[in-house]
């Protein structure tokens, strides 16, 4: 084995060990056929937040009727052009987003940062959230966001929400 290969292998092993960690919860897996789409494309303007607890994103709601005869997955793609700026650099002030089903169930993962809080301008951020098991019938998807206490302000800006669900 060459040195470079050995180094790569050692690196891979270390990386794998670190990745595996010691306290990983089991991932959530599943299969489905969410071939129907509903979406909302927002106005191309500011969507600012000053709350440091989650509040509704305006123009961020999609109502849909899950098809089928048994629960199956729903995938929610959120795309935005946000910015979050630290008021006291270098302390970052992230902009955090979550997606709620019927106002009660958070998607996986439960929340994601759409800005690291050290932006110098707007930049595209996007994420596919997963609801593993949604019962047939009428539902509502709502995107929520919050600012960091480090600044108390962020802007999600223009955003699209695309919901894939069962026909």
């Amino acid at each position, binding site marked *: 084995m060459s040195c470079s290969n050995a180094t*790569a292998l050692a690196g*891979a092993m270390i990386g794998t060990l670190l*990745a595996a960690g010691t306290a990983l919860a089991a991932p959530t*897996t599943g299969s489905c056929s969410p071939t129907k789409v509903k979406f909302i494309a927002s106005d191309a303007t500011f969507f600012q937040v000053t709350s440091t607890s989650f509040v509704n994103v305006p123009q961020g709601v999609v109502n849909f009727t899950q098809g089928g005869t048994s629960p199956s997955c729903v995938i929610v793609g959120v795309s935005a052009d946000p910015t979050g700026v630290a008021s006291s650099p270098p302390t*970052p002030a992230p902009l955090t987003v979550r997606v709620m089903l019927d106002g009660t169930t958070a998607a996986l*993962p439960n929340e*994601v940062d*759409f800005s690291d809080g050290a932006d110098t301008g707007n930049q595209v951020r996007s994420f596919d959230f997963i609801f593993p098991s949604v019962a047939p019938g009428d539902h509502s998807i709502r995107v929520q966001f919050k600012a960091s206490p480090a600044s108390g302000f962020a802007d999600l800006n223009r955003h699209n929400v695309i919901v894939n669900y069962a026909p």
Partner: protein
Amino acid sequence: MIFAKPAMAAVALCATVCPIASHADPVVGNCSPARVKYVASDALAFKTISSSYVDLAQARVGFRQGGNTPSCVLVRFSANANGDQSNFAIRALLDGAEMALPNEVVLTDGADKGPAARRFTFVLPSVSPGSHTVAIQYRRLNGTDGRMNAHNTIVWFAR
């Protein structure tokens, strides 16, 4: 011609003297990947210090490609990635050997101060019917480590 702004002059000059990039032909196709399998990870750091590609934990999806002929598979990967200690790159591998298009992408730009949402859709243009596995791999590019944090891997394939 009088240029109102230096930037316009630069663009015009480059259009005249800069070499024209020669692009390889793109890969094009069409397909109907109506089935989904996914894995939603735990919300921990998923840190790597490896500078060569290693498997990202909780980012492997096994699936059975349907149909009678090869067709496309789409791999939609999302992560709350943090590159404040190093840029890092990712790739999607089919059956441990075939790299999705593009072969790798840089997920972070080296100016991160914390996690932020990133999503990329990889394309496998021609996957034969039958059982397959897609795995996401990652590596650091410069600094000490990269942290993927919570990530979702969603594979769209033929019914």
